[in-house]
């Protein structure tokens, strides 16, 4: 196994408020790492830090390092970084464009305009997102006309169209029904062969089912999120080492 991302002594502040405190974690390449924890523990903030989504928020400052293949991504060009680290959000958010244009949007933005090449990328991305068979005859249809589960897979296709190395997923299935949720989880198992995946989820069973590693975040007094326990998913859910993890995953609080 190779480490894709190393988070070292990472702190994040919103103005005076410390949202993340001294996070240290290694993300394994071609594996799925789940981030779990109660609301407000900083798990979304953490994942958003990995492709610098928090840069846009006024008053945010960070310290420490997030090493992406050995280089601190906090100091890299954001546009280039986001090509390599894609993101899928909680609510499916296709652009109000056709299915084709949704997927082609990223490659076009990165300078690909050859129609044949774009068509190939769109087909491959939709295939990888397990959506091709359902939409291949209506690529001109609006992305917003698809079902919620299809929209989310369209967003995954859009994310992988620029050939990222890492896919961040922030509650990707929480707005979906159980069947669409399972489809996304199955898809993750296929995608991890080519991508490194980090998923934030409130659904512990989803973390248990779908991930290889799990990180449990909690907040200290004062509200700063910190990493309580990190390890292989199987051992964390059967025999967690920390009492706090035990109490959280057994539903004793939170």
């Amino acid at each position, binding site marked *: 196994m190779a480490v894709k991302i190393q988070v070292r002594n990472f702190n994040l502040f919103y103005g005076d408020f410390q949202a993340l405190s001294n996070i240290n974690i290694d993300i394994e390449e071609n594996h799925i790492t789940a981030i779990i924890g109660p609301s407000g523990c900083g798990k979304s903030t953490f994942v958003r830090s990995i492709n610098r989504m928090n840069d846009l928020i006024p008053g945010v400052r960070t310290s420490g390092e997030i090493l992406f293949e050995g280089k601190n991504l906090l100091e890299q060009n954001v546009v280039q970084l986001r090509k390599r680290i894609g993101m899928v959000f909680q609510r499916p958010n296709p652009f109000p464009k056709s299915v084709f244009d949704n997927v082609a949007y990223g490659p076009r933005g990165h300078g690909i305009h050859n129609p044949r090449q774009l068509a190939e990328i769109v087909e491959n991305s939709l295939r990888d997102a397990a959506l091709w068979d359902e939409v291949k005859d209506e690529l001109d249809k609006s992305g917003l006309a698809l079902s919620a589960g299809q929209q989310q897979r369209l967003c995954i296709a859009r994310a992988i169209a620029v050939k990222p190395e890492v896919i961040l997923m922030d509650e990707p299935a929480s707005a979906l029904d159980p069947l669409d949720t399972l489809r996304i989880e199955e898809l993750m198992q296929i995608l991890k062969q080519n991508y490194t995946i980090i998923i934030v989820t409130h659904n*512990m*069973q989803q973390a*248990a089912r779908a991930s290889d590693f799990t990180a449990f975040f909690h907040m200290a007094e004062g509200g700063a999120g910190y990493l309580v326990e990190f390890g292989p998913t199987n*051992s964390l*859910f*059967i*025999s*967690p080492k920390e009492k706090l*993890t*035990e109490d959280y*995953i*057994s*539903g*004793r609080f939170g």
Partner: protein
Amino acid sequence: MPTIRETFDRQIHKIENEILILGSMVEQAMRHAIDALLTHDIDAARQIYEQDMLINEKRFAIENAILIIIATQQPLARDLRVIASMLEITTELERMGDYAKGVAKVVTKLRGVEIPMPEKKLNLMCDITIDMLHRGLKAFLDQDVNQARIIPLDDDKVDTLYNEIYHEVVQIMIAAPENIDHANYLMWVAHNLERMADRVTNICERTVFIATGELLEISTTDDEDFDF
């Protein structure tokens, strides 16, 4: 203020109680089976057969309740280890019930047969085994890991008695070869008691698993090793 897990905790507690009742039924069945053997009481042996049906019914009721908890509560961490262990322990107890039934069967096989019996040793073996089971279930319910590690050590006493009974039964066979079949039944009885004690060790292993998360075999010295 009630915690959000109150229903879940109550369900687990109820199953624990049912396991305790099942354990008492098994203890009683084995004690009655040995008493029936030593007093040649065929009626008592038949009652043990009926009792075994109740043991099986209770086992399925507990198993069903555990499946419902798994399906509806999706237990994790310690809860998961407790529930998986309860399923295992219930199976162990049901098998112990079968051992008691096996002894009752010997009572019917020895109907009208005059044969000397290692009475004291069988009684003692039965007492130790039942005591081990009783303490093993208590350690499980109390989550007493120290006790769970100590109880299996008594298995050595059971194994020693098993060896002694074996030699005694061989002597019975030599003294009266026409009794070989019947004496062999006595070996079944001793063997069933010996297996029952082994299964108590399995229960103790689950108690350790719940506490530590490690599935380990608790080793006792010479497992049913004959000194021929």
